[in-house]
């Protein structure tokens, strides 16, 4: 205990070390603050959407005449609520939409919409706690640990210190513990406050804290390995900064290039066009053929499938859905391409611990690419429920009025698929 106290006192006497720890603490606090503010903004946007939806529903109730109107004009909200941990690792929530209103028309023309966002803000990446942990904390650890031995040697004290009985236990271990402890406190204290504010599930919070500790452990090990090699302080610092630089900036960027080159993606523009072509060709295809194709999928609606000689919504929505099916394979390939890239990135994470741990943080916070794909799957599942709800009305010719709008299925954010 006295050894720890002495080391803490020594650390407290170094103005540079204190400044570094304070800066780290301030950055972590700012990251948590910005994260909480961003999550609050997202939550407020969802609340605004749900409140505004009531006005839209009332307006629709004013002119809805049949189920076709409800299906065509009735946009329904879906949303990807931020998790109780999202504030700590915002992940890709800034580039993928968290809100999307869909209607019963072909989904492929709707699901790729983007949120309004300034791309120049997305370009440098998010400033959140995960960024502070993955990018800045290692630099502080390097600054605190690179001259552990070389600093004493350059000051001419190393021999005397090494000669003290059980130097490792009495000097070096407490010294490392105090410095790493300082870094952990600077990171974990703001996180704990943020988790309390966000009401994070304790187990998830603990797991996230564990990831933070793992990042620190990894860099402590790297720093000690380099520091132990007995070079000068400057050489140690340069080598460690180079390692940090390679692992945190260069290798992930290169891996991203390689992964994108290795996994080809279907052309999104072609996918969208193909969908539009098929949907609009629906107007000119023989109507019986369209209905036959549709009934093959929904035989239960055969009884009510007879068409009048003029326009009918059931035919219109039938070819809308066929338009989705027409590109289902490409759309699937598009999704699995993204999933495959994410999977390769996770594999890369095992070779590049900083990238791997950053991914683990985003995964735990539900803000990674996998979470985005899962949200899209929830939208797809909901869209199916929405369509089928209207098919029942359209094919049975049941009257549909303002009162029926209340029966329209709602999106379940928790995501029963």
């Amino acid at each position: 205990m006295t050894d720890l106290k002495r080391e803490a006192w020594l650390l407290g006497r170094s103005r540079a070390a204190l400044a570094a720890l304070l800066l780290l603490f301030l950055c972590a606090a700012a990251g948590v603050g910005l994260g909480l503010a961003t999550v609050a903004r997202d939550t407020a946007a969802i609340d605004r959407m749900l409140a505004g939806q009531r006005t839209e529903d009332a307006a629709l109730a004013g002119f809805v005449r049949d189920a076709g109107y409800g299906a065509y004009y009735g946009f329904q909200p879906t949303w990807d609520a931020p998790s109780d941990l999202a504030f700590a690792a915002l992940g890709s929530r800034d580039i993928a939409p968290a809100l999307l209103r869909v209607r019963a028309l072909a989904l492929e023309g709707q699901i790729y919409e983007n949120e309004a966002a300034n791309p120049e803000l997305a370009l440098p990446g998010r400033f959140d706690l995960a960024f502070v942990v993955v990018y800045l904390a290692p630099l502080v650890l390097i600054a605190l640990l690179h001259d552990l031995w070389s600093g004493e040697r350059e000051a001419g004290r190393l021999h005397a210190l090494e000669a003290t009985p059980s130097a490792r236990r009495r000097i070096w271990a407490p010294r490392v513990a105090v410095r790493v402890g300082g870094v952990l406190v600077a990171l974990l204290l703001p996180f704990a406050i943020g988790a309390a504010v966000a009401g994070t599930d304790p187990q998830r919070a603990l797991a996230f804290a564990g990831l933070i500790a793992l990042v620190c452990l990894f860099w402590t090990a790297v720093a000690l390995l380099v520091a132990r090699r007995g070079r000068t302080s400057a050489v140690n610092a340069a080598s460690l900064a180079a390692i940090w630089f390679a692992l945190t900036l260069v290798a992930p960027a290169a891996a991203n290039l390689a992964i994108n080159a290795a996994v080809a993606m279907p052309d999104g523009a072609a996918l969208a066009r193909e969908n539009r072509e098929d949907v609009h060709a629906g107007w000119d295809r023989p109507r019986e053929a369209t209905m036959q194709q549709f009934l093959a999928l929904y035989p239960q609606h055969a009884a009510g499938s007879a068409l009048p000689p003029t326009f009918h919504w059931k035919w219109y929505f039938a070819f809308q859905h066929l338009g989705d099916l027409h590109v289902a394979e490409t759309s699937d390939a598009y999704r699995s391409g993204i999933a495959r890239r994410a999977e390769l990135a996770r594999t890369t994470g095992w070779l590049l611990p900083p990238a791997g741990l950053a991914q683990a943080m985003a995964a735990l916070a539900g803000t990674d690419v996998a979470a985005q794909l899962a949200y899209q799957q929830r939208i797809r599942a909901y869209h199916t429920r929405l369509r089928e709800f209207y098919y029942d009305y359209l094919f049975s010719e049941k009257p549909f009025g303002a009162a029926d709008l209340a029966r329209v299925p709602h999106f379940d954010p928790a995501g029963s698929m």
Partner: protein
Amino acid sequence: MTRPFAMAGAIAGAELRLMLRSRLALVGVATLLLLSGIAAVTSAVQTASASATRAAAQAATDAQFQTQPDRHPHRMVHYGTYALRPVGPLAAFDSGVDAFTGTVLFLEGHRQNSATFGAARESSDLVRFGQLTPAFVLQTLAPLLLVFLGFAAVARERERGSLRALRSHGATAAGILAGKVLALGAVALLAMAPALVALLWSALRHPGEGGIAALIALAYAAYLLVWVIGITAVSALARTAQGALVALIAAWAIITVLVPRAAAGWAGVADPLPTRVDTEFAIAADLRRLGDSHNPDDKYFAAFKARILDRYGVTSTDDLPVNYRGLVAAEGERLTSELFANYAARADAIQRGQSARLQALGVISPALAVRQASMVGAATDLGTHLAFMNRAEAYRYDLIQRLNALQANQVSSADDGARSRDPLADQRTRISADFWKTMPQFHLAAPAPATRATAMLPALGLLGLWLAISALLLALARRTLDRTAE
């Protein structure tokens, strides 16, 4: 007069020889050159392929529009078309925000869609660690290499006591510092070489971009010179080489990594942008206030009808020489598009305000300033993207109104009114496919180089300011060096 220069040259030569003998320096420079080469080649290949894909997609969508069969014009309003954002002429050098914006925009009647299918959303999370482009190498990687190579330049001489020896050979503080700056500057020039070749290659493929490419190169030269001078000054001011290194790495992390991210986070929270749904709701509410073309008793459209009847001197829409439905469609589109334009202008202003905040923070981070100059020059910045969105919206409006005019003038009013009940009338409302071929095609050129050069001026001014700051720091170092030698 020649003696100080000769001395500076000799010192620079000695410093460069020392670097040549140092394995660390050689490995660092070789790694940077290799990375830079990889970045230049992959970026060029990717940009060329993206450019070709988008041009082909634009041609395909234009061709599909023109070859549509005979149709009711309003069906073409819903069929719509696509605008693809062309790749900036120098995007192979700096892809800017390209990955973070959608590239494909669906243009249809009544609606304003967002640009979809951006590269970032098609990538793994790793894309957020940075994209390996020549611009990234120069903005982020090159300064750190210079830090590694230059932190000890003066501090080492002092620690070994060789500073005194140099002084006794007649070297002035200014001469020593000039020599070190020269040596590190030579390395910076070498580090810039592959990126400059990439820039030159881009400029050669796009004649007319030469001037702006030179301006971009100048911006990076100024940026790296700020680093070279700053590193030398810190090396002279620091008490030990280790102290200089730690301070410089901290400065590098703050300038190139911390501030750009923090600034973006701050700008996004300080000046938030309404979501798409916010805007949709606001537009819907405004429309309900203005007029609802669904509602036969709507006041606005009743007045509109009276105005039309009055203009043609008739008492019923059936007596109009044109198809009234087409006129209503055009008026409805005019109303919605006016709202789209208003809300888009507001959102654009907020985005430009956010980017202006980033730009202002170039005062504390030259990396922000050079990034801005580079993106604007390469036509891959926010402004160019907004120009695309606005140009596409103008094109959309024009196209839809041409189609509405076709409905008003080419589709008989009686047939149009009966088409949902009478299949034969429906047939007659289909107008010749030849009309689709008369529609203009979407085309967008990057902003003129002169316009971009003007837009680069604030960022270039900030870089000039940073050059002045680093020069002041060097002057301070010179005085300190002079004093310690006495």
